[in-house]
Protein backbone atom coordinates (compact mmCIF):
# COMPACT_ATOMS: atom_id res chain seq x y z
CA UNK A 1 0.00 0.00 0.00
CA UNK A 2 1.30 3.44 -0.92
CA UNK A 3 0.74 6.10 1.74
CA UNK A 4 0.63 9.78 0.84
CA UNK A 5 0.02 12.80 3.05
CA UNK A 6 -0.89 16.12 1.50
CA UNK A 7 -2.36 19.50 2.28
CA UNK A 8 -5.97 20.08 1.29
CA UNK A 9 -6.76 21.85 -1.98
CA UNK A 10 -7.74 25.51 -2.00
CA UNK A 11 -11.50 25.76 -1.54
CA UNK A 12 -13.61 28.87 -2.08
CA UNK A 13 -16.40 29.34 0.48
CA UNK A 14 -19.01 29.69 -2.29
CA UNK A 15 -18.31 26.23 -3.66
CA UNK A 16 -19.25 24.67 -0.33
CA UNK A 17 -22.77 26.10 -0.16
CA UNK A 18 -24.32 23.10 -1.91
CA UNK A 19 -22.79 20.75 0.65
CA UNK A 20 -24.62 22.70 3.37
CA UNK A 21 -27.98 22.30 1.67
CA UNK A 22 -28.21 25.51 -0.37
CA UNK A 23 -29.42 25.38 -3.94
CA UNK A 24 -27.50 27.06 -6.75
CA UNK A 25 -29.62 30.21 -6.58
CA UNK A 26 -29.58 30.53 -2.78
CA UNK A 27 -26.78 32.06 -0.79
CA UNK A 28 -26.43 31.78 2.98
CA UNK A 29 -26.96 35.02 4.92
CA UNK A 30 -23.86 36.92 6.00
CA UNK A 31 -23.89 35.54 9.57
CA UNK A 32 -23.70 31.99 8.19
CA UNK A 33 -21.14 32.96 5.54
CA UNK A 34 -18.90 34.33 8.27
CA UNK A 35 -19.02 31.00 10.09
CA UNK A 36 -18.35 29.17 6.82
CA UNK A 37 -15.33 31.34 6.03
CA UNK A 38 -13.72 31.07 9.47
CA UNK A 39 -14.45 27.34 9.78
CA UNK A 40 -13.13 26.63 6.30
CA UNK A 41 -9.94 28.55 7.02
CA UNK A 42 -9.43 26.57 10.21
CA UNK A 43 -10.03 23.25 8.43
CA UNK A 44 -7.67 24.07 5.57
CA UNK A 45 -4.92 25.16 7.97
CA UNK A 46 -5.27 22.36 10.50
CA UNK A 47 -6.15 19.30 8.49
CA UNK A 48 -4.24 17.07 6.09
CA UNK A 49 -5.32 14.41 3.66
CA UNK A 50 -3.94 10.97 4.37
CA UNK A 51 -4.33 8.50 1.52
CA UNK A 52 -3.50 4.82 1.26
CA UNK A 53 -3.88 3.09 -2.08
CA UNK A 54 -2.92 0.16 -4.22
CA UNK A 55 -3.09 -0.23 -7.97
CA UNK A 56 -3.69 -3.69 -9.35
CA UNK A 57 -3.97 -5.01 -12.87
CA UNK A 58 -4.72 -8.66 -12.12
CA UNK A 59 -8.49 -8.52 -11.95
CA UNK A 60 -11.10 -10.41 -13.94
CA UNK A 61 -14.34 -8.97 -15.21
CA UNK A 62 -17.64 -10.78 -15.71
CA UNK A 63 -20.88 -9.10 -16.82
CA UNK A 64 -22.18 -8.58 -13.28
CA UNK A 65 -19.08 -8.87 -11.11
CA UNK A 66 -15.35 -8.62 -10.97
CA UNK A 67 -12.71 -10.52 -9.06
CA UNK A 68 -9.40 -9.55 -7.54
CA UNK A 69 -7.04 -12.13 -6.03
CA UNK A 70 -8.55 -11.43 -2.59
CA UNK A 71 -12.23 -10.67 -3.17
CA UNK A 72 -15.15 -10.35 -5.55
CA UNK A 73 -17.28 -7.29 -6.23
CA UNK A 74 -20.92 -7.77 -7.18
CA UNK A 75 -21.69 -4.68 -9.25
CA UNK A 76 -23.02 -4.50 -12.78
CA UNK A 77 -22.10 -0.84 -13.09
CA UNK A 78 -18.54 -1.34 -11.95
CA UNK A 79 -18.12 -4.36 -14.21
CA UNK A 80 -19.21 -2.26 -17.21
CA UNK A 81 -16.56 0.35 -16.49
CA UNK A 82 -13.89 -2.20 -15.62
CA UNK A 83 -14.24 -3.76 -19.07
CA UNK A 84 -12.37 -0.93 -20.72
CA UNK A 85 -9.89 -0.36 -17.86
CA UNK A 86 -6.33 -1.57 -17.52
CA UNK A 87 -5.89 -1.01 -13.80
CA UNK A 88 -7.94 -0.90 -10.63
CA UNK A 89 -7.22 1.73 -7.99
CA UNK A 90 -8.24 0.68 -4.47
CA UNK A 91 -8.01 3.60 -2.08
CA UNK A 92 -8.75 4.87 1.39
CA UNK A 93 -8.72 8.57 2.21
CA UNK A 94 -9.00 10.15 5.62
CA UNK A 95 -8.66 13.56 7.20
CA UNK A 96 -5.85 13.88 9.69
CA UNK A 97 -6.59 16.59 12.23
CA UNK A 98 -3.55 18.54 13.47
CA UNK A 99 -5.37 20.08 16.42
CA UNK A 100 -7.87 18.84 18.98
CA UNK A 101 -11.54 19.26 18.18
CA UNK A 102 -12.96 22.65 19.10
CA UNK A 103 -16.06 22.99 21.24
CA UNK A 104 -18.80 24.09 18.83
CA UNK A 105 -22.40 25.14 19.07
CA UNK A 106 -24.83 23.11 17.00
CA UNK A 107 -24.84 25.45 13.98
CA UNK A 108 -21.04 25.54 13.87
CA UNK A 109 -20.93 21.78 14.33
CA UNK A 110 -23.27 21.26 11.38
CA UNK A 111 -21.29 23.63 9.17
CA UNK A 112 -17.96 22.09 10.14
CA UNK A 113 -19.35 18.64 9.41
CA UNK A 114 -20.47 19.68 5.91
CA UNK A 115 -17.21 21.47 5.16
CA UNK A 116 -15.00 18.59 6.29
CA UNK A 117 -16.98 16.14 4.18
CA UNK A 118 -16.70 18.49 1.19
CA UNK A 119 -12.98 19.11 1.72
CA UNK A 120 -12.31 15.39 1.95
CA UNK A 121 -14.12 14.73 -1.34
CA UNK A 122 -12.29 17.52 -3.12
CA UNK A 123 -8.95 16.26 -1.79
CA UNK A 124 -9.85 12.72 -2.83
CA UNK A 125 -10.77 13.89 -6.34
CA UNK A 126 -7.55 15.83 -6.69
CA UNK A 127 -5.38 12.96 -5.55
CA UNK A 128 -7.08 10.44 -7.84
CA UNK A 129 -6.59 12.78 -10.77
CA UNK A 130 -2.95 13.19 -9.82
CA UNK A 131 -2.44 9.41 -9.68
CA UNK A 132 -4.08 9.10 -13.11
CA UNK A 133 -1.93 11.91 -14.48
CA UNK A 134 1.23 10.20 -13.28
CA UNK A 135 0.11 6.98 -14.95
CA UNK A 136 -0.87 8.92 -18.05
CA UNK A 137 -4.32 7.38 -17.89
CA UNK A 138 -7.92 8.46 -17.35
CA UNK A 139 -9.57 7.73 -14.03
CA UNK A 140 -13.19 6.61 -13.72
CA UNK A 141 -15.82 7.73 -11.27
CA UNK A 142 -15.02 6.32 -7.80
CA UNK A 143 -17.28 3.64 -6.34
CA UNK A 144 -17.61 3.32 -2.58
CA UNK A 145 -19.02 0.38 -0.63
CA UNK A 146 -22.66 1.11 0.19
CA UNK A 147 -23.23 3.31 -2.86
CA UNK A 148 -24.71 2.53 -6.25
CA UNK A 149 -25.10 -1.27 -6.62
CA UNK A 150 -22.13 -2.17 -4.42
CA UNK A 151 -23.05 -3.44 -0.95
CA UNK A 152 -21.45 -1.99 2.16
CA UNK A 153 -19.91 -5.42 2.74
CA UNK A 154 -17.52 -4.33 -0.02
CA UNK A 155 -15.49 -2.81 2.81
CA UNK A 156 -14.07 -6.34 3.16
CA UNK A 157 -12.25 -5.80 -0.12
CA UNK A 158 -10.78 -2.55 1.17
CA UNK A 159 -9.60 -4.30 4.35
CA UNK A 160 -8.09 -7.19 2.40
CA UNK A 161 -6.17 -5.06 -0.09
CA UNK A 162 -5.15 -2.16 2.16
CA UNK A 163 -4.07 -1.66 5.76
CA UNK A 164 -6.58 0.83 7.20
CA UNK A 165 -5.00 0.80 10.65
CA UNK A 166 -1.73 2.06 9.14
CA UNK A 167 -3.65 5.19 8.17
CA UNK A 168 -5.29 5.40 11.58
CA UNK A 169 -8.64 4.26 10.17
CA UNK A 170 -10.67 1.65 11.99
CA UNK A 171 -13.35 -0.21 10.05
CA UNK A 172 -16.02 -1.73 12.28
CA UNK A 173 -16.12 -5.48 11.78
CA UNK A 174 -19.92 -5.77 11.81
CA UNK A 175 -21.31 -2.51 10.48
CA UNK A 176 -18.33 -1.48 8.31
CA UNK A 177 -18.50 2.09 9.58
CA UNK A 178 -15.21 3.97 9.56
CA UNK A 179 -13.48 5.97 12.26
CA UNK A 180 -12.54 8.77 11.83
CA UNK A 181 -15.90 9.47 10.19
CA UNK A 182 -14.24 11.74 7.64
CA UNK A 183 -12.92 8.81 5.68
CA UNK A 184 -13.74 7.53 2.18
CA UNK A 185 -12.97 4.09 0.83
CA UNK A 186 -13.34 3.55 -2.89
CA UNK A 187 -12.44 1.73 -6.04
CA UNK A 188 -11.75 3.45 -9.37
CA UNK A 189 -10.47 2.31 -12.68
CA UNK A 190 -7.59 3.60 -14.75
CA UNK A 191 -7.64 3.31 -18.52
CA UNK A 192 -6.24 4.72 -21.74
CA UNK A 193 -9.69 5.86 -22.81
CA UNK A 194 -12.29 7.91 -20.96
CA UNK A 195 -14.71 5.65 -19.10
CA UNK A 196 -17.99 7.39 -19.81
CA UNK A 197 -20.45 4.96 -18.24
CA UNK A 198 -21.86 6.93 -15.35
CA UNK A 199 -24.48 5.10 -13.28
CA UNK A 200 -25.40 8.33 -11.47
CA UNK A 201 -27.26 9.34 -14.63
CA UNK A 202 -29.86 6.63 -13.99
CA UNK A 203 -29.93 6.86 -10.22
CA UNK A 204 -33.04 8.16 -8.48
CA UNK A 205 -31.17 9.40 -5.40
CA UNK A 206 -28.58 11.43 -7.27
CA UNK A 207 -29.85 14.69 -5.80
CA UNK A 208 -29.07 13.55 -2.29
CA UNK A 209 -26.10 11.27 -2.85
CA UNK A 210 -22.66 12.75 -2.28
CA UNK A 211 -21.20 10.67 -5.08
CA UNK A 212 -23.29 12.58 -7.62
CA UNK A 213 -21.10 15.64 -7.08
CA UNK A 214 -18.75 14.01 -9.53
CA UNK A 215 -21.35 14.66 -12.21
CA UNK A 216 -20.76 18.40 -12.16
Amino acid at each position, binding site marked *: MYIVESILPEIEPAETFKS*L*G*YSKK*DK*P*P*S*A*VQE*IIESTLERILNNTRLLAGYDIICDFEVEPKRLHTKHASIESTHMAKIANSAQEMLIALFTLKELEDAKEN*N*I*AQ*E*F*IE*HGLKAYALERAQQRMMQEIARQKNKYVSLPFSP*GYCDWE*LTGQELIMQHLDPEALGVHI*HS*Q*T*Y*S*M*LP*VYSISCVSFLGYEKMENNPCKYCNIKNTCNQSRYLS
Partner: protein
Amino acid sequence: MSTNQNLLQALNHLDKNLFFEEVESLIRNEPHEDIVNAYFNPGLEHTKERYEQNYIGLPEFLLSVQWLQELLNKLDLKNRTQNNKQIKIVLGVIEGDPHDMGKNIVKKLYECYGYQVIDLGKDVSQDKFVQSSQEHEADIVGISTMMSTTMEVLEKTIQRIRESRPECRIVTGGAFINAAIASNIGADKYIENAINLIPETEELLTN
Protein backbone atom coordinates in the same frame (compact mmCIF):
# COMPACT_ATOMS: atom_id res chain seq x y z
CA MET B 1 -41.04 48.58 17.23
CA SER B 2 -41.77 46.38 20.26
CA THR B 3 -39.12 44.21 21.83
CA ASN B 4 -40.82 41.10 20.56
CA GLN B 5 -40.77 42.42 17.00
CA ASN B 6 -37.16 43.42 17.46
CA LEU B 7 -36.33 39.94 18.61
CA LEU B 8 -38.08 38.38 15.61
CA GLN B 9 -36.37 40.86 13.28
CA ALA B 10 -33.03 39.95 14.80
CA LEU B 11 -33.77 36.29 14.12
CA ASN B 12 -34.97 37.02 10.57
CA HIS B 13 -31.76 38.88 9.77
CA LEU B 14 -29.55 36.73 12.01
CA ASP B 15 -28.41 39.93 13.68
CA LYS B 16 -26.57 38.63 16.72
CA ASN B 17 -25.87 42.04 18.27
CA LEU B 18 -29.49 43.15 18.06
CA PHE B 19 -30.73 39.80 19.36
CA PHE B 20 -28.56 39.80 22.46
CA GLU B 21 -29.13 43.52 23.11
CA GLU B 22 -32.85 42.76 23.20
CA VAL B 23 -32.24 39.74 25.39
CA GLU B 24 -30.28 41.80 27.92
CA SER B 25 -33.04 44.40 27.97
CA LEU B 26 -35.70 41.73 28.52
CA ILE B 27 -33.75 40.11 31.32
CA ARG B 28 -33.48 43.43 33.14
CA ASN B 29 -37.06 44.53 32.63
CA GLU B 30 -39.35 41.52 32.44
CA PRO B 31 -40.25 38.69 34.85
CA HIS B 32 -38.21 35.77 33.65
CA GLU B 33 -41.11 33.33 33.68
CA ASP B 34 -42.98 35.65 31.28
CA ILE B 35 -40.07 35.84 28.87
CA VAL B 36 -40.47 32.15 28.07
CA ASN B 37 -44.10 32.46 26.99
CA ALA B 38 -44.02 35.93 25.50
CA TYR B 39 -40.67 35.88 23.70
CA PHE B 40 -38.90 32.54 23.69
CA ASN B 41 -41.81 30.34 22.55
CA PRO B 42 -42.97 32.72 19.78
CA GLY B 43 -39.35 33.09 18.64
CA LEU B 44 -38.92 29.36 18.42
CA GLU B 45 -42.20 28.85 16.57
CA HIS B 46 -41.40 31.71 14.19
CA THR B 47 -38.00 30.17 13.41
CA LYS B 48 -39.50 26.74 12.90
CA GLU B 49 -42.14 28.10 10.52
CA ARG B 50 -39.54 29.93 8.46
CA TYR B 51 -37.50 26.75 8.15
CA GLU B 52 -40.58 24.69 7.35
CA GLN B 53 -41.53 27.15 4.60
CA ASN B 54 -38.01 27.14 3.15
CA TYR B 55 -37.32 30.79 3.95
CA ILE B 56 -34.20 29.68 5.78
CA GLY B 57 -31.82 26.77 5.51
CA LEU B 58 -30.73 24.34 8.21
CA PRO B 59 -27.65 26.37 9.26
CA GLU B 60 -29.81 29.49 9.89
CA PHE B 61 -32.40 27.41 11.69
CA LEU B 62 -29.77 25.88 13.96
CA LEU B 63 -28.11 29.24 14.61
CA SER B 64 -31.46 30.74 15.63
CA VAL B 65 -32.23 27.76 17.85
CA GLN B 66 -28.79 28.13 19.44
CA TRP B 67 -29.37 31.81 20.25
CA LEU B 68 -32.82 31.08 21.63
CA GLN B 69 -31.38 28.42 23.87
CA GLU B 70 -28.74 30.87 25.06
CA LEU B 71 -31.60 33.24 25.90
CA LEU B 72 -33.27 30.46 27.88
CA ASN B 73 -30.03 29.67 29.70
CA LYS B 74 -29.74 33.28 30.86
CA LEU B 75 -33.11 33.17 32.58
CA ASP B 76 -33.48 32.52 36.26
CA LEU B 77 -36.38 30.09 36.18
CA LYS B 78 -37.72 28.17 39.14
CA ASN B 79 -38.26 25.19 36.91
CA ARG B 80 -35.49 24.90 34.34
CA THR B 81 -37.61 22.67 32.14
CA GLN B 82 -39.66 24.98 30.03
CA ASN B 83 -43.46 24.59 30.07
CA ASN B 84 -43.07 22.33 33.10
CA LYS B 85 -42.41 19.36 30.89
CA GLN B 86 -40.82 16.58 32.83
CA ILE B 87 -40.48 14.23 29.91
CA LYS B 88 -37.20 12.34 29.94
CA ILE B 89 -35.66 11.26 26.67
CA VAL B 90 -32.68 8.95 26.41
CA LEU B 91 -30.92 9.57 23.09
CA GLY B 92 -28.11 7.78 21.34
CA VAL B 93 -26.65 6.46 18.12
CA ILE B 94 -26.78 2.69 17.77
CA GLU B 95 -23.80 0.40 18.34
CA GLY B 96 -21.37 0.32 15.42
CA ASP B 97 -22.41 3.70 14.06
CA PRO B 98 -20.23 6.76 14.73
CA HIS B 99 -22.39 9.31 12.86
CA ASP B 100 -23.93 11.62 15.44
CA MET B 101 -24.75 14.85 13.59
CA GLY B 102 -28.46 14.03 13.30
CA LYS B 103 -28.67 12.93 16.91
CA ASN B 104 -27.01 16.16 18.05
CA ILE B 105 -29.56 18.26 16.16
CA VAL B 106 -32.39 16.24 17.68
CA LYS B 107 -30.90 16.72 21.14
CA LYS B 108 -30.64 20.48 20.68
CA LEU B 109 -34.27 20.75 19.56
CA TYR B 110 -35.58 18.58 22.36
CA GLU B 111 -33.68 20.67 24.91
CA CYS B 112 -34.99 23.88 23.39
CA TYR B 113 -38.54 22.59 23.72
CA GLY B 114 -37.98 21.79 27.37
CA TYR B 115 -37.51 18.05 27.31
CA GLN B 116 -34.91 16.51 29.59
CA VAL B 117 -32.35 14.77 27.42
CA ILE B 118 -29.92 12.10 28.55
CA ASP B 119 -27.39 11.93 25.73
CA LEU B 120 -25.59 8.59 25.51
CA GLY B 121 -23.49 9.66 22.52
CA LYS B 122 -22.60 7.45 19.57
CA ASP B 123 -21.79 3.76 19.13
CA VAL B 124 -24.02 2.96 22.12
CA SER B 125 -24.36 -0.67 23.17
CA GLN B 126 -27.67 -2.47 23.68
CA ASP B 127 -26.88 -2.83 27.37
CA LYS B 128 -26.29 0.91 27.73
CA PHE B 129 -29.63 1.78 26.12
CA VAL B 130 -31.50 -0.69 28.35
CA GLN B 131 -29.65 0.33 31.51
CA SER B 132 -30.11 4.09 30.90
CA SER B 133 -33.77 3.68 30.08
CA GLN B 134 -34.26 1.93 33.43
CA GLU B 135 -31.98 4.15 35.48
CA HIS B 136 -33.57 7.40 34.26
CA GLU B 137 -37.08 5.98 33.91
CA ALA B 138 -37.13 7.37 30.41
CA ASP B 139 -40.46 8.24 28.82
CA ILE B 140 -38.89 7.94 25.39
CA VAL B 141 -35.78 6.30 24.01
CA GLY B 142 -34.59 7.79 20.72
CA ILE B 143 -32.23 5.70 18.62
CA SER B 144 -30.47 7.12 15.61
CA THR B 145 -28.71 5.21 12.87
CA MET B 146 -27.23 6.13 9.52
CA MET B 147 -26.17 2.66 8.44
CA SER B 148 -28.27 -0.20 7.10
CA THR B 149 -25.80 -2.66 8.61
CA THR B 150 -27.02 -1.75 12.10
CA MET B 151 -30.52 -3.07 11.40
CA GLU B 152 -30.14 -6.33 13.28
CA VAL B 153 -28.69 -4.76 16.41
CA LEU B 154 -31.25 -1.94 16.22
CA GLU B 155 -34.12 -4.42 16.22
CA LYS B 156 -32.59 -6.36 19.09
CA THR B 157 -32.03 -3.16 21.09
CA ILE B 158 -35.66 -2.09 20.62
CA GLN B 159 -36.82 -5.54 21.68
CA ARG B 160 -34.70 -5.47 24.83
CA ILE B 161 -35.85 -1.99 25.84
CA ARG B 162 -39.44 -3.10 25.22
CA GLU B 163 -39.00 -6.19 27.42
CA SER B 164 -37.38 -4.28 30.27
CA ARG B 165 -39.71 -1.26 30.21
CA PRO B 166 -42.92 -1.86 28.24
CA GLU B 167 -44.24 1.61 29.12
CA CYS B 168 -41.30 3.37 27.43
CA ARG B 169 -41.91 4.69 23.91
CA ILE B 170 -39.22 4.12 21.32
CA VAL B 171 -38.54 6.44 18.40
CA THR B 172 -36.01 6.02 15.66
CA GLY B 173 -34.68 7.97 12.72
CA GLY B 174 -31.82 8.06 10.28
CA ALA B 175 -30.78 7.93 6.67
CA PHE B 176 -32.08 4.56 5.54
CA ILE B 177 -35.09 4.20 7.86
CA ASN B 178 -38.69 4.97 6.99
CA ALA B 179 -42.00 4.52 8.78
CA ALA B 180 -42.49 0.97 7.48
CA ILE B 181 -39.01 -0.18 8.53
CA ALA B 182 -39.39 1.47 11.94
CA SER B 183 -42.70 -0.29 12.47
CA ASN B 184 -41.31 -3.65 11.32
CA ILE B 185 -38.49 -3.56 13.81
CA GLY B 186 -40.81 -2.63 16.67
CA ALA B 187 -40.34 1.12 17.10
CA ASP B 188 -43.36 3.22 18.11
CA LYS B 189 -42.49 6.05 15.78
CA TYR B 190 -40.23 7.01 12.93
CA ILE B 191 -39.21 10.66 12.96
CA GLU B 192 -38.08 11.88 9.58
CA ASN B 193 -36.66 15.34 10.22
CA ALA B 194 -36.29 18.34 12.51
CA ILE B 195 -39.64 19.80 11.45
CA ASN B 196 -41.58 16.69 12.44
CA LEU B 197 -39.64 16.05 15.60
CA ILE B 198 -41.70 17.96 18.14
CA PRO B 199 -45.24 17.37 16.72
CA GLU B 200 -44.52 13.67 16.26
CA THR B 201 -43.10 13.42 19.77
CA GLU B 202 -46.08 15.21 21.26
CA GLU B 203 -48.46 12.96 19.34
CA LEU B 204 -46.64 9.91 20.62
CA LEU B 205 -46.89 11.12 24.19
CA THR B 206 -50.63 11.80 23.97
CA ASN B 207 -51.49 8.40 22.46
